Every structure is written in structure tokens, then in C-alpha cells.
């Protein structure tokens, strides 16, 4: 088992004939993902260069292929529209790779597309190693196994996973939730899913400064994951403090999470925080041994 994605998940690609969409479709197919078609308005009826059927609309694609998942590669001004279209067509899970989506667009999307899980935007996607990958993650770094991983960062995720894989710690599912202020799926959402996934035996949470998602994750873990080994990492520990947003920003929940506050939250929840990514495999192994 895995969360959100397995090898039977039928996936379409919105923007399949664009340069990035086409390139990563090829890679996802190579990884074994069940990509069943793509969407490019005006190219309905054609075939993509991968031999996949192209549709004018998500609705057409879903009707013809039974797709439940979508991977969105469209420019930022059109990302919210692509998400609304996917939702309207009954898609269950949408991965939005696009970087630079206006935050107010996401406020509207996240507040209205109930019933559809969104990963991202500005994220590398998710992968259930050995089964399927949606997004842009380099598949060869990953290895099937029992560690669930959640990360706000893209390349840092690969870094951490690379270490896990080299240490023989395979992964159940790795989710890159994205670094934007408003995202569809949070750490807590993923933790809840991992909790219910029989394959996942340990969890790595890769956070970074800003926001309060890590603090929320620590609180959730303290309450619901007492019996699961969890290790955390916080990127940007040594980053000098950014400019203060000042004014209203500072008095709203979640706008000003420092590395110290996040580390303290995890430690209070009994979760060790790795000082460097390369420390994660050792800490996790120790933790797993302690729980065994």
C-alpha cells in the first residue's frame, strides 16, 4: 500500500503537449505510472508523442479514460482554471507543479474545490516508489519500502531520499507538498494518511522556516502518532532572519514560524530533529529500532 497514489491510479496530464508536460510525461511513463491520456485544448483527437490520446477538456479525458488523477503543467495564470476544470470533471487528486500561482487564486481554489485533493502548487509531486510517480521527481533516487516522507521543498526532498535509499530505507510514498503560502495538502493531511497506511512504518517530515505547518504537524504527531517513529528536518536553520513583514502579518497564525519554534515543537512532541539531511537515515534507524 501507499497513500494517494498506486500503480492502478489512472493519471492524465494537463498540458501534455507543452515542453515540460511532454518531457515529464515521458519520465512518468518510464517509471510505470498509468498515464492514460492528456489534455491540450484544441488538440483533442490527436495523439501525444508518447502515443497517448489527447483531449480538448478534462471532462472528455475522464469520460474516455476513467482517469482519477491529474498532473498539471500549465503556466501560472491558467493553473487555478486547470484545477477548477479538474474538480468539475470529478478528478480525485490533482498535482499542480506550476510555480508562481497567485496566492489569491489558491485561496479561492482551496476554499471551493471540496472533494478533490490538491498537491501543491509549486511542488515536485508525489511518488509511491516502485508503483507510480506523478510530477517531476527523479525516480531513480527512490526505492520501495516503508518510510513515508513529506516535504515542503523539491530538491531537498531528493537529497533526503537519496540518503534514505543509500541507507537501505525504502519509501512507501513521498509527497512534495510545495512551498507556497496556500497549498492544497498539508503535513497534517499526509500524516493522517500515513497513519492509516499499513505499509508505512516510519515517517520523515522535511520542513523549513516560515508558516506554522511544522508546528501543526508536531501537535498532530504528539496526539496521533505516538506509536510511529518520526524524524524531522528543518531547512534554513542558519538563514539570517528575513525582512519582517511587520504589521498585520505578524499577528496572524502561521505567518512567522522560525526554525527555533519548529524545532522546539518537534522536540516537545518527542520527535528528533536532524541537524543535516545526511543525519536523517541514522536518526530514523535508531528511532525504528527503539519502537520495534
Amino acid at each position, binding site marked *: 500500500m501507499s497513500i494517494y497514489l498506486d500503480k492502478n491510479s489512472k493519471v492524465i496530464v494537463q498540458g501534455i503537449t507543452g515542453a*515540460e508536460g511532454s518531457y515529464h510525461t515521458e519520465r512518468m511513463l518510464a517509471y510505470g505510472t498509468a498515464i492514460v491520456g492528456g489534455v491540450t485544448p484544441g488538440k483533442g483527437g490527436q495523439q501525444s508523442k508518447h502515443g497517448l490520446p489527447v483531449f480538448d477538456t478534462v471532462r472528455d479525458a475522464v469520460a474516455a479514460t476513467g482517469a482519477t488523477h491529474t498532473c498539471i503543467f500549465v503556466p501560472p*495564470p491558467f493553473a487555478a482554471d486547470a484545477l477548477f476544470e479538474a474538480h468539475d470533471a470529478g478528478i480525485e487528486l490533482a498535482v499542480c507543479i506550476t*510555480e*508562481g500561482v*497567485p*496566492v*489569491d*487564486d489558491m*485561496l479561492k481554489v*482551496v*476554499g*471551493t474545490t471540496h472533494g478533490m485533493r490538491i498537491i501543491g502548487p509549486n511542488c*515536485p509531486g508525489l511518488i509511491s516508489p516502485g508503483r507510480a510517480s506523478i510530477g*517531476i*521527481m*527523479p525516480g531513480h*533516487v527512490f526505492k520501495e519500502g516503508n518510510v513515508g516522507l513529506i*516535504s515542503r*521543498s*523539491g*530538491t*531537498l*526532498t*531528493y*537529497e533526503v531520499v*537519496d540518503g534514505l535509499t543509500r541507507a537501505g530505507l525504502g519509501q512507501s510514498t513521498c509527497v512534495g507538498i510545495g*512551498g507556497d*503560502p*496556500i497549498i492544497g495538502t498539508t503535513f497534517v493531511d499526509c500524516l493522517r494518511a500515513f497513519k492509516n497506511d499499513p505499509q508505512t512504518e516510519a515517517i520523515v517530515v*522535511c520542513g*523549513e*522556516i*516560515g*508558516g*506554522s*505547518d511544522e508546528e501543526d504537524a508536531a501537535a498532530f504527531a504528539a496526539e496521533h502518532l505516538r506509536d510511529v517513529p518520526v524524524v524531522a528536518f528543518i*531547512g*534554513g*536553520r*542558519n*538563514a539570517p532572519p*528575513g*525582512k*519582517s*513583514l*511587520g*504589521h*498585520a*502579518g*505578524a*499577528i*496572524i*497564525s*502561521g*505567518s*512567522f514560524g522560525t526554525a527555533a519554534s519548529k524545532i522546539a515543537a518537534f522536540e516537545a512532541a518527542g520527535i528528533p530533529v536532524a*541537524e*543535516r*539531511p*545526511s543525519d536523517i537515515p541514522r536518526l530514523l534507524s535508531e528511532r525504528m529500532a527503539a519502537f520495534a
Partner: protein
Amino acid sequence: MPDSPNLARMNLMEYQGKELFRRSGIPVPRSQHALTPEDVAAFVASTPGEWVVKAQVLMGGRGKAGKIKFATSADEGRTVAREILATPMPPNRQNPKGEPINSLLVEEKLAIRTEAYCAIAIDRAAKKPVIMVSRFGGMDIEEVSEKHPESIAKFYVDTAIGYSPFIGRELAFRAQLDPGYRRQLPGILGSLYEMFFRYGAKLVEINPLALTADGDVVASDAKVELDDDALFRTPEFKEWHKTLPLDEDETLASNAGLGIRNFRRFPGNVGTLANGAGLAMATMDAVSNAGGAIANFLDVGGGANAERVRNCYELVVNSTGATAFFINIFGGITRGDEVARGIVQAMAETTSRKIPLVIRLTGTNEEEGRRILAEAGMQPVETMDEGAREAVRLANAASAK
């Protein structure tokens, strides 16, 4: 840092924010934007009355700094304008360099009965816009939040439903505003909410929101932060964007073709470049962990090509104290072969001085990338920690010369 809300960039000056208020139907005092003391004098001469002359800067604390003055005649207007423009805004804790003053707003002096505060911001955790109202207007809201946290009434808006006037009414009661606000606040907050989405804002704040002796509710100041990512929707702001002061790092980043949030300098000697903000931060952490001092943060972004890598190299070499350069690429969307070509080309073409390179390249197309680097006589290291140690060693060695 790049993903942090701390670096929201498109902060509007008061006069720009008030222009948006005006377009959105939010009452603002009569006013005129002015660049010189003569402009101020001419305006006051042509429109007699009592006027306030305010420095147009992003920093707070204008009043205490003597950058808000009054004028009732052309001569007085000219004089106070000169006084305000004579010196920049003095530094404070948040802005240690102060801020130059390039323009002024001449504004009708209001007869104010009392002042309140209102704003719309984004709550990341709730994933909702939040409307805030307080009866403590004209004070720094962070200070209000510390001293009178109960005085700030908040409403988290469900974007599926949107704004409805009861929200403003309820906030006026909960914040215990002067009853004079009740009739007008719901409409003003409605316009503010509409403006928030129409112009793609991250924060809109009216502080103070004045209640005048005549019973009118008027936005006496304006603080608006727009989302850079939404600027495509409002091409009319491109001009304004240019008028806003970029700091040196932002200017350098922009000139190198990077996003203004993607580059930042520090006092150390280890230059860094990574792809992705998370990895760039982790790279800085790795250098620190290896006992080194970083010269910069640099996120080359997701789609780095040869030209961009060269620009980044030159940016770091020419603008920081870097004596060695650690390039840390983990390929996902960025392809290792492209990066490798970029590095090779950068070193071949650059007219900048050469400093030692340490290259860590893995992920997508890493074999091809490494082959290219090897052909050019460069050898990548295996891990980030190893690269950081090597870069610190080389930097310190070079700096010691």
C-alpha cells in the same frame, strides 16, 4: 527565505494604495502626489485649505521622524516639503538603513473624532483571508497585538461564500468600535475584500481608519502589499513597480535575470548556488555546519540553463566576497546535462576572475552531466556535506593567500 512571506515585494506607497482605494470605492481624503517643494506650493496655492504633507516611504514611524507636517499656505507648503525631503527616513530596528524620500503626498487635513484599524491578510494555517478590526487605530498593530490582543476582532472568510455585510457589522461590534463606524464599515470592508482579490493583494491595511467630526469614515493611511505572482493581471502596476526602491541584493538579482527573492548576500567567503529554495537553504546550512561562512544565498530556480548558470557565477564572483564557489544541484526538473553544460560554458566564456569550483551534481541526467563535466576536466563531489567541506577548505585556503 524565497518561500517565506517575509519577502513579499510589491509594497505600495501610501499614494499608490490610496489610488487603489479610490478605484475600489473606499473613501480617501482629497490629495495630490508631489515630487518637489514647488509642486506642493503650487497645489496648495491653487486649492486653499489645511493640508498635510507626508513623506512617501514604506517605513513606518513617519510622524515621530518629523516626516508628516502641516501647511495652510503655498509658502508653508514649500517650506515643510523642503524640510521633509532634506533628509532620508532615519533608520530603525526593522530598517537599519533608513529609507530615501523621493516624493510627497499633500492631503486634506481631516477633523478626526477617533481612529480605528482594519486590514485583510492571508492566514496560511486556516487557508483563508482574514479580516481584522481593532479600535486602536493609528498605533502599530504589532504593539496592539501585544498589549491588547483581545481588542483585535478577526473574521476568517470562506471564499466559497465571500464577503457579506454582516461580517463588517459583526466586527464593528466585536471590536467595540465607536458606533459612528457601524453604518459605513460593512461597505468599506466589502470594497476592501473585492480590492484584495481584484488586484491580487497579500495584505491591505487601513491604519488609521478615521471617523471624522462630520461622521464620515475615511482611510487616512494605506498599506497595500501585492502578490508579485498576480501582477500579470494588472499590467497597469508595472510602472509603479519600477518606482519602488529595490535594495542592492534585489537589484543585483534582477539584473542577473533572477527573481528578486532568489539572491541574498552575506559576509562570508563561500559562494553557493543550488536549485530550489529548500536545497539552497540546506546548502547554506551545510556550509555553516562545515565551519564555513557563507557569502550568499542563491536559488538558480527550476529551469536553469547554461546562460543562467553563467550569470549566477558572475553575480557571485563579482558581488560577494566568495573565494570558492559551491554548486549544489540535485536534478528533478533541472537536468544535470544542462547544468553541466552551463558550468562548462560559464567557465569557458566568463571574463570574470576564476575562483575554485566545487560541484555536486546528482539526480536527473546525472550521468550525462558528470560526463560533460569530466570531459571539461571538472570533477564533481559525491555528497552535499562533502562538497560543503571541500568548498570551505578551498575558500579558507584562497582567502588566506
